[in-house]
């Protein structure tokens, strides 16, 4: 019997559909509309699954991108830390589908930071990926940030949204109520009708979780409306002070940024990506090429008496990348001509490179035949080569 009307409502609840009857589907989500204007997560690697650089780094005393892709930390004279991509095997974050987290452990404490010392962790985002917030227009949207967090310390943490195009900021706080327990937090950030995000590939927004700071960042008040950037407001409410004891740790995962205002009952689910999809989005900013001994870089060409050229076709990056590598005695070499191997003293990015294709040439090299093809490779267990185009 053909159906002229499909009973979708009963199908969704598991009840037996009523032939030629029932109630037609009128909504895609529980609250009646698909809440997302973006088809992919706005934040990359919110589940900390991709960590091309390392899975653990010790002795951290300065700022940079150290561990899980896209996540940055600013650290200025405020203790020493170990970062780890921590596997999750139990707990509330695990039970909600998160298998990895970014963990920070204090290994050398600084309980009395100087006024200008600070430690925050977060992400920097391109302006062209944020236009759906319509910031700077009369239709500006609110922001909702959600995440799972765990620490040995209870207390209040401050999160700042810093518009680096217009030097503005707006903030929220979260409270860790139970020590050593994964808790889900949601922070709503106001809409801003002032100051549009520049529509380009440069940094427009920093999201900062303040972990500790000196008095320069604590004297003001947490701004719940957008305001001109103010140093004294950046950690006005935070009291986690992760750097004050070597027993301290702080972990985070499941970070999602949504357009609009949501509560714990209306927040759309975290958008899980396959590892491959996640990795591809991260590689816009960082591409690990090789690490370890006897790994290929690319074909090479002996261009002149003392210079070898390499061409790397790469996934398109945000901008022309930096070549970031470890070097030492016999770290890099070429081979190919009659089985011979010749060492290379340095790798230099050339002037023809783009964000899609990188040309390298050697500092000096000897022993090859001009015009012949070779291949470049790592020649030491500690060799490492990456392309970096972070914000």
């Amino acid at each position: 019997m053909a159906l002229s009307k499909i009973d979708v409502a009963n199908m969704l609840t598991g009840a037996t559909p009523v032939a030629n009857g029932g109630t037609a589907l009128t909504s895609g989500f529980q609250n009646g509309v698909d809440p997302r204007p973006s088809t992919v997560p706005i934040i990359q690697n919110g589940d900390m699954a991709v960590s091309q650089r390392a899975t653990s780094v010790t002795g951290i005393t300065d700022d940079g991108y150290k561990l899980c892709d896209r996540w940055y930390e600013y650290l200025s004279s405020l203790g020493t830390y170990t970062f780890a991509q921590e596997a999750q095997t139990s707990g509330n974050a695990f039970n909600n589908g998160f298998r990895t987290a970014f963990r920070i452990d204090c290994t050398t404490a600084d309980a009395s930071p100087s006024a200008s010392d600070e430690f925050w962790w977060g992400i920097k985002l391109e302006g062209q990926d944020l236009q759906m917030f319509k910031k700077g227009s009369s239709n500006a949207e609110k922001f909702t940030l959600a995440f799972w967090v765990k620490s040995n310390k209870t207390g209040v943490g401050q999160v700042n949204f810093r518009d680096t195009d217009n030097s503005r900021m707006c903030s929220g706080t979260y409270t860790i109520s139970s020590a050593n327990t994964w808790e889900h937090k949601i922070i709503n950030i106001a809409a801003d009708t002032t100051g549009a995000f520049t529509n380009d590939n440069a940094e427009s927004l920093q999201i900062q979780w303040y972990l500790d700071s000196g008095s320069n960042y604590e004297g003001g008040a947490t701004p719940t409306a957008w305001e001109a950037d103010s140093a004294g407001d950046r950690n006005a409410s935070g009291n986690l002070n992760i750097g004050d004891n070597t027993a301290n740790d702080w972990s985070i995962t499941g970070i999602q940024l949504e357009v609009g205002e949501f509560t714990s009952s209306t927040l759309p689910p975290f958008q899980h990506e396959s590892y491959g999809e996640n990795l591809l989005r991260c590689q816009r900013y960082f591409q690990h090429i090789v690490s370890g001994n006897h790994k290929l870089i690319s074909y090479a060409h002996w261009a002149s008496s003392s210079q070898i050229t390499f061409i790397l076709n790469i996934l398109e990056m945000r901008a022309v990348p930096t070549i970031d590598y470890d070097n030492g005695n016999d770290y890099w070499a070429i081979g190919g001509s009659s089985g011979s191997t010749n060492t290379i003293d340095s790798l230099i990015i050339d002037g023809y490179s783009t964000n899609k294709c990188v040309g390298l040439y050697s500092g000096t090299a000897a022993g090859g035949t001009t015009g012949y093809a070779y291949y470049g490779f790592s020649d030491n267990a500690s060799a490492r080569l990456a392309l970096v185009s972070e914000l």
Partner: protein
Amino acid sequence: MFEGCTIKYNKQDGVNVSIQVIYPDNSNGSHREMSVPIAEGNTDYQAILEWVADGNTIQEAD
């Protein structure tokens, strides 16, 4: 950010095309090295420009 680093231009066909940043040696004699393109959108290049604005000088190419 560049404490103890050697920072110098790389020349190609007589033109400065990139900047080599050589970090101090580790205990095993190896070191980190960056080859930074002279490209406006590259944030390492922007950091070098800030370093220069602070009164430092990029060495000429060898």
